[in-house]
Every structure is written in C-alpha cells, then in structure tokens.
C-alpha cells in the first residue's frame, strides 16, 4: 500500500507508521501557519461527514494525499474536543464509506495486504477477486450488518472457511475501518492544542447544531410514556399478559426492560402482569425492581436480533429496518411530535 491508499484508509497500521515517521509533530499541525490548509481540510471533512454521511472520493496525487493523511489526526482531535457521540459516529461512518470506494479499486494482492493489516487472514482469488476467510473473522464484522445475506446461515461454510465476493469483502473492510476510526474517540486533547483548534472546533459545533435541529433529535430521555408508539412485539406481549396468557421468561424480561427504559413507573408494570396466570405481586415487584437496577445493574431491553434468536421477534413488516425496540419507540415518538407540531403551526 502507498500514500494514496493511506490517504483513503487512514486507520491502517501503514498509515499510522507513515504519520509517526513524518517530520511533522502533532502540535505543529495544529498551530503552525504552514499547516492551516491541513486544518481546514480536516474541518471540511468533518462537516462533509455530518451533512452527507460520506466523503467525496477524489483521486489524489502524492502531495495532496500527504495533506489528506495529515488531516486525519487533526480531524480526530477536533472530534475528540467536541465529544459528541453522534458526530463521532457520523465521522467514522463517512471515513469508512470513503475507504470502501477506494478498496473497490484494489487488486487481489492489495486486498490481501489490507486484510492482513487488519488482522484478517484472507486468500483472494486473482481471477474472481473473491476472498476466502475464516468464519469467525466473518461474523466478527458481519454481525452488525442486518441484511439477511450477512447472516452466517446464508453463507456456505466448509471446514471453517467461507468465500465472499469482492464487493462483500470490501463492505466488511468498510466495517473494520468504521470501528477502527471510532475506536479511542474521544481521546485526551491537551489544552494548548484545544486552544489552537478553537476556531475549527466552533465551526464544526455550529454545523453539528444545525444538523441536530434538522434531525430533531435530542439527548434527553423520554419525557412521558406514549403507549401508541410501542413496537408491535411489545404491544402483543402486553395484550397477551392482560389476556391471561403466560409469557415466556425472555418475553417478560424484554417487555419489562422496555417499559422501564422508556420511563414507565414500576407499579404500572406490575399492573400489566396482574392478569398473568402465575402472578404473585411480591415476586413481580422484586423482579421489576431488580431489572430496574435495585441490585446495582439496570438492564437495557434486548435488541431485536437477540429476541429473534430467543424466539420472540415478531418480524412485522413495520419493523424491517429496526434493530432495537427503543429505536422504534424513539422514532415513533419523534414522528408523532412532528405531526403534533405541524397541526399546531397550521
């Protein structure tokens, strides 16, 4: 891999070594007037990531690639100084998407080299460009991808190995890049560097605030419980509980964690279980309080994938792109609020 590859995939070991060997120190990049354009490039990338969710793929010559690579640690310092989870994730995703485009132009040997850099042993067929990897390496990165084709059961595995197309392999590498970029963020930024980057930090903060207003997201919890916004699986569990149907242990756990997570009072949850055939008030109260964190650990509602594995996922079409019941609820509440606001304005 060369400097052009490093500029497009800046989280490789090679890129980090290149930066380490470079004569430019991290304080110089952030303070020296000679590197003003590097700082502007870094700021531009973060704002582009925020606005578009991706970075435009450009073909660089060597000096331009060098500047791009130098901009990477500066961008990390700006993102760290702001310390906003949404911004961090959005930036990491955009860098990863850029890497994907670059990887799609790789030849077999470069693909193998990149995988090895990421700790994955891959054999890439020069003719078909398909990659053969161990299935544990595959699930390590593919388990967060939700299309059915990424399930291990959708792949042909033989003696622990599976073969995937170049496009799928590049998508897996994109996932590795996303995790690597996100890893360690936010990191400590010395006060003098924070001061030197002040104008860039403000610029990104402003862009982030505009973006947040557009999205209508807030970091606050749910102010009140809106039963009309519950996901179908929780609705059906509540209906079953109230209709005297005995729920499985995992379903009770999912329903209770969900209701506690959205702020429902424990007494109200006890009332839902009251019609269950095996209802015992004292035990139910104890279990709800335990799940709510009485013994030190407050539990979060399991993801849809966990619940499907446990046989509790209803798989309704309205849930297709939802990975977590709380995400469903949050979106539904947001949509409802938006509808209400529109009504008030008109």
């Amino acid at each position, binding site marked *: 891999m060369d400097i052009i590859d490093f500029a497009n995939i800046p989280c490789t070991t090679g890129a980090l070594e290149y930066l380490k060997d470079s004569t430019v120190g991290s304080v110089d990049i952030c303070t020296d007037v000679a590197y003003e354009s590097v700082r502007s490039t870094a700021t531009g990338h973060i704002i582009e990531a925020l606005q578009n969710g991706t970075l435009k793929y450009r073909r660089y010559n060597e000096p331009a690639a060098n500047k791009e690579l130098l901009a990477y640690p500066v961008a990390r310092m700006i993102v760290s100084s702001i310390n906003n989870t949404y911004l961090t994730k959005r930036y990491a995703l955009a860098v990863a998407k850029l890497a994907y485009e670059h990887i799609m132009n790789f030849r077999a040997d470069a693909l193998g080299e990149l995988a090895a850099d990421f700790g994955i042993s891959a054999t890439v067929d020069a003719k078909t460009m398909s990659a053969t990897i161990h299935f544990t390496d595959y699930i390590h990165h593919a388990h967060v991808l939700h299309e059915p084709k990424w*399930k291990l059961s959708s792949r042909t*595995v033989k003696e622990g*190995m599976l073969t995937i197309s170049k496009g799928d392999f590049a998508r897996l590498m994109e996932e590795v890049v996303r995790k690597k970029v996100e890893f360690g963020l936010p990191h400590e930024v010395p006060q003098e560097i924070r001061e030197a980057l002040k104008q860039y930090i403000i610029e990104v903060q402003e862009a982030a605030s505009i973006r947040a207003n557009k999205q209508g997201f807030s970091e606050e919890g749910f102010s009140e419980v809106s039963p009309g916004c519950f996901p179908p699986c929780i609705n059906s569990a509540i209906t079953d509980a109230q209709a005297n149907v005995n729920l499985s242990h995992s379903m009770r756990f999912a329903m209770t964690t969900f209701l506690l997570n959205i702020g429902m009072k424990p007494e109200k949850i006890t009332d839902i279980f009251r019609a269950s055939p095996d209802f015992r008030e004292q035990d139910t109260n104890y279990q709800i309080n335990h799940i709510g964190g009485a013994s030190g650990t407050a539990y979060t509602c399991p993801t849809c994938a966990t619940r499907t594995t446990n046989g509790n996922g209803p798989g309704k079409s309205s849930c297709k792109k939802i990975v977590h019941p709380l995400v469903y609820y949050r979106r539904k509440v947001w949509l409802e609020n938006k509808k209400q606001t529109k009504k008030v304005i008109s």
Partner: protein
Amino acid sequence: MSSISDYYWHAPLYEPPDFTSREFGFRKNGEKMVRHRAFSSVQKLRTYLIETAPDHVYFSSSKYKDPAAYPMEDKKKGWEGADLIFDIDFDHLEKPTLREAKKQSEKLLMILEERLGFKDILYVDSGSRGYHIHVYDKCVQKLDNAERREIADFFSHYKMRRSMKVINPNWVEIDTVVTTDFTRLIRLPESLNVKKDTMRPCTILR
C-alpha cells in the same frame, strides 16, 4: 460416607483446560446454588466434592482472572475468554425423545466439525435429559455475545434465501441461550447428576 462422596472418591474427575481460571458452582436438590468458587487443583476440587457431596456440579465456560470474584461485574472485568457450548435437551424438542436428542446432537457434532471446522470438541451425555457439546478451539474463545448469537442462528429452523423464508438444512434444536450467554455455568463432565430417584454420571462420549 454417602454414595455421592464415595463416587467422587473413586471417579475420574474431568479437568477442563485452564482449570484454575474457572468458576465452579454446586447445588443440592432443593437448595440455593453455591457459586463463585475456584480451586487451585483438581485434587482440591475432589476433596470439596467428597466433603460436601453435592447433587450437581457446574463450571464456567468462561475463564476469568479471578474466578471467585463476586459480584459478577467484578468477575467480568477479568474475563479471559470462553468456550462455545451447545445444549440439546430432549424436552425442548419438537419430537421430545432422548433418541431424537441423540440424533440431533450427532448432526450438530458433524456440522461443527465438517462445516465450522472445529477440532477440539468434547461430547457429553448430560446424565439426564440430553447432550452437551463443548468447543475449546482457540478461535471461539474471544467471541462476544452477538458473535455467539450468529453461530446459534446458524442452526436456526429457518433462514432467508432471496427474500424467501426457507428451512435451514443445518437446523438443530439447540438451547440458544446456553450458546450465547457465556456467563452461565455448565455441568462438569464426569460429575454426578442426582435426581430424586436416580443418580447418573455426566459421561464423556468422545
């Protein structure tokens, strides 16, 4: 000496890999489980078993820096990896017979070896309702819950093919929670499974 103590006096005791990093748990029927115990040698475990004569002996599929640490959160901080465990209980099967459990466990074993390529496997008769399979291969040790869930789903009843739900040829009725949750304890091979009227050892089949 009780017959349980007598058994542990003579029985070959199974020593899981990284023995000293394992948590042990014990139960007498009807009593609360005693957990968070660790032993520096198999001989010390044997002494404990002879003295306390438990009805059930369990060990953690996980390895910990301090296996006796409590609460669990403290133990998890020193997590060093976990074996991959499969459990087939006949009373959870569509056709609930011990024969069917045996058939399914043999199918599972074949898939684990031929498809997933595992080499270091222990196949055990649980001494009661089914079969346990322990996978000790290095590649599984650091898998997290979500990754273990992917493996559990590899054996699910259905899978998707071109947007169609089809029967999964690898379908085996495993207890998915046992495979995904590596903080659980599993019955110690060669230990006794004592029920009200019966007492059978958890036998290593291969």
